[in-house]
């Protein structure tokens, strides 16, 4: 049994959400610079130049990359040999989120009741926590600051087996087409195929954090990722929706066993900033 204090967990969560919101990931920056340099549309180039310059403005001025600093989503893979001490796991995660958003001057974007009161909770809590128990004595944390311009453009489709690969391909590309300029393209597309209704969506969210260019280990899914990437770029939506060559930076698929009657597909869209950070305790 390995002991991890809730204070350490809280501090780690704070650092992850501060980092995700303030620092652009190196792979994303590189891809955005490459998109800017390759762009032939003057309008899309205008947008990409601003977006790359924005990373430096944020760092120099002590501001988050985007004003929508997101809902705080945390994937926690908890080793079953770990015992959390000095508090309660969920409370520690929320305290970490509160600290990041209040002290770090991030925007508080959460309302307590979704339908009637819509009153701001003032600390961006509660976080959305997806914890799973894994072998070992480590805790792997993946923090995603999820903006809703892109979240609102995401879809879950309960396809059936006859839809096949072509049906899934069309569903992915159609989701990007319907989203158009709204999710802040160039987008990152996470796809969950299989499982059930909610597992498909969870896989899609998790897949948005995969490093750019890394492909699914099964070459058939990797091929589908590449084909969807090319087809979405061919839509010509372009950076900021101003047209141009780059509409999507990456398509990442996760797959899981499903029911004999089903072929669930979830497509989670993420903006060009793709704000996430991870650590292991």
């Amino acid at each position, binding site marked *: 049994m390995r002991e991890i204090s809730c204070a350490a967990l809280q501090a780690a969560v704070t650092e992850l959400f501060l980092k995700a919101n303030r620092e652009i990931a190196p792979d994303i920056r590189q891809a955005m610079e490459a998109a800017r340099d390759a762009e032939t549309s*003057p*309008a899309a*180039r*205008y*947008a990409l130049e*601003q*977006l790359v*310059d*924005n990373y430096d*403005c*944020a760092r120099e*001025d*002590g*501001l*988050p*990359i*985007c*004003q*929508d*600093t997101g809902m705080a989503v945390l994937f926690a893979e908890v080793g079953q040999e770990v015992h959390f001490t000095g508090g309660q796991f969920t409370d520690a995660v929320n305290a970490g989120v509160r600290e990041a958003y209040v002290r770090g*001057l*991030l*925007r*508080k*974007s959460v309302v307590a009741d979704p339908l009637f009161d*819509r009153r*701001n909770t*003032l600390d961006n809590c509660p976080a959305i926590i997806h914890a799973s128990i894994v072998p070992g004595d480590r805790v792997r944390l993946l923090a995603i600051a999820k903006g809703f*311009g892109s979240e*609102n453009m995401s879809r879950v489709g309960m396809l059936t087996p006859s839809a096949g690969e072509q049906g899934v391909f069309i569903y992915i590309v159609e989701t990007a087409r319907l989203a*158009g*300029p*709204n999710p*802040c393209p160039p987008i990152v597309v996470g796809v969950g195929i299989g499982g059930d209704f909610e597992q498909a969506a969870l896989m899609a969210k998790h897949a948005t954090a995969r490093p750019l260019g890394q492909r699914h280990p099964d070459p058939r899914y990797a091929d589908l990722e590449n084909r969807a990437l090319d087809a979405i770029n061919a839509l*010509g939506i*372009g*950076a*900021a*929706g*101003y*047209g141009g060559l780059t509409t999507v930076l990456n398509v990442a698929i996760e797959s899981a066993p499903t029911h004999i009657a089903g072929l669930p597909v979830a497509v989670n869209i993420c*903006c*060009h*900033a793709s704000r996430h950070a991870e650590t292991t305790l």
Partner: protein
Amino acid sequence: MNTIGVPIDIRLPLTDEAVASLRAGMTVRLTGPCYTARDAAHKRLVEMLDRGEELPLPLRGQCIYYVGPSPAPEGKPIGAAGPTSSYRMDAYAPRLLALGLKGMIGKGARTRPVLDALRREKAVYFGAVGGAAALLARHITASGLIAFPDLQSEAIRLLTLEGFPAVVLADSYGNVFPEAQA
């Protein structure tokens, strides 16, 4: 006309002549006063109109920026301040345009009723680049609270813009940029 050219300097509030001079696809630099309002503030404004109440901001000739900024660090007028998706305000925008609103700044596509209202009321829709929030904040030199402080980042504020970079996404003649979005 749908090409990005040399930016044109435009003063706010917008004059009828300025609105008439703008065409979809032009780049502009906006300078002058501009109000903020997004989902919750728009809902309240329209509810106030329904009750026959006076609004907390003037609309005639004015421009509204769809933004919910992050908190301002000490010594700065505002935090990160990029545009939010405009379509969520489409249910309310034609009502405000009919009362003299001349400009909106946001991101993304508008629906047909808003594009029709722009032509009918002679107004314009500007796009700022979504996600360029820290860069855009450098073009906001002042910010003051006007109404609905309980809405936090969604409160109505009066900003002063200084050379704020934007693109005309829909003009007062029914043109849209890019054309594929029409």
